[in-house]
């Protein structure tokens, strides 16, 4: 999926009044993805989030569709470290930093997050892409460029998860094109402690349940008792 949807949402107050009470009805962990347009806004958001009954915060330093902020902080060691450490000071909850793949060396921003005290990193966000309608000779997206997600980016994501898991000592949450249990295993072998599914949900709303069942089948076939034992266990050629 190539999209330039951006981060449309009615803001933190609306979230607190409407979305959070709804989410609370389910027996699950709630991790809030937060994005600001300046360092100050990230800190303000974190202060509010710290007061809420949630299980963690994921800092979005990597959305390619937002003009100011987000990705500007996410591409360098220094940028990630600056935002993350300021947020860390005001946030007691588990803090995950979501990284952009649109960099030369993904381990640099990952180390920035680790050195700033993040509890984990998640990767990858979308890859910047563009598609042209050859009949109209114009980009397909109104915003010209957008973020590419889904199975097309999975090999890039697996590679980056592998590199980051080798480079940092904090847990890695892997994502990018996961649509079944085999993909989950692949990310875990590469070094992911946990995984998440985004685009796959649009194709199949029950995809997570199916993927978990497939992971269980894999465990049976390979005689694995504890799934944690496969994390990072890929044998390189």
């Amino acid at each position, binding site marked *: 999926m190539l*999209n330039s*949807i951006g981060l*449309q949402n009615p803001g933190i107050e609306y979230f607190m009044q409407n979305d959070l009470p709804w989410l609370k009805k389910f027996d699950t962990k709630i991790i809030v993805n937060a994005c600001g347009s300046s360092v100050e806004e990230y800190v303000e958001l974190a202060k509010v989030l710290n007061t809420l009954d949630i299980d963690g915060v994921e800092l979005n330093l990597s959305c390619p569709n937002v003009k100011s902020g987000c990705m500007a902080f996410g591409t360098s060691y220094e940028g990630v470290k600056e935002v993350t450490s300021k947020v860390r000071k005001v946030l007691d909850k588990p803090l995950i930093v979501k990284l952009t793949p649109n960099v030369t060396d993904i381990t640099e921003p990952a180390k920035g997050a680790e050195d700033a005290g993040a509890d984990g990193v998640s990767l990858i966000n979308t890859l910047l892409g563009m598609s042209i309608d050859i009949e109209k000779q114009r980009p397909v997206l109104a915003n010209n460029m957008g973020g590419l997600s*889904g199975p097309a980016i999975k090999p890039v994501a697996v590679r980056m998860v592998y590199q980051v898991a080798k480079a940092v000592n904090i847990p890695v949450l892997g994502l990018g094109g996961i649509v079944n249990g085999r993909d989950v295993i692949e990310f875990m072998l590469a070094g992911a402690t946990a995984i998440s599914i985004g*685009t796959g*949900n*649009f194709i199949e709303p029950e995809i997570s349940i199916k993927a978990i069942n497939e992971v269980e089948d894999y465990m049976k076939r390979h005689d694995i008792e504890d799934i944690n034992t496969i994390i990072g266990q890929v044998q390189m050629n």
Partner: protein
Amino acid sequence: MLRRPISIYNIDRNNIEFVFQVKGKGTRILSSKEEGEEIDILGPLGKGTFKYEGTKNIAIIGGGIGIFPLYELAKSAKETAKINMYLGFRNKEFVVLEEEYKKLADKFILTTDDGTYGSKGYAIDFLKEDLKKNNIDMIFACGPLPMLKAVQKLAKETNTPCQISLEERMGCGLGVCLGCAVKVNAGEQEIYTHVCKAGPVFDSNIVEI
């Protein structure tokens, strides 16, 4: 591959019919399905379709592939209302299902932009003329954006209630990906809603297209 949002054309007892234009990879794959093959469908999605209850004399205007969701409307509304139907196509090659729609209409106009079939011109021009003399109590529209914009404007000028069905690219169809955002006026407030969840049919007075 992502699912494709496709409207229902006809419901006939235990059968649902879809008509779509092969436009890209997804629709090409769908079009190559053989009889007896299974397809995976998620739906029906959204907040239902056109509200025609209580109408007596309605105008149904459709353009191109936008005519398909109007068939079921015409079929149902026909029981209580007079159907004035205006279908526009680019040229002769694009004209489809003429007989099916004609059967449902009390008045039937078919146009092509270049005049290679039916009347030459735009369907809306015929609707415009009829609005002057006929007592049309509701307009229902589906088609390309320029047509919908023109219908919306005409409905406003003539003070005719109007419902339009919007088409948008969709990622999920469930209100999650937020890809099909559309601006609506809720009182004095302007808010964004989503075609897949709140639509696809909107009162033309409240939606900004």
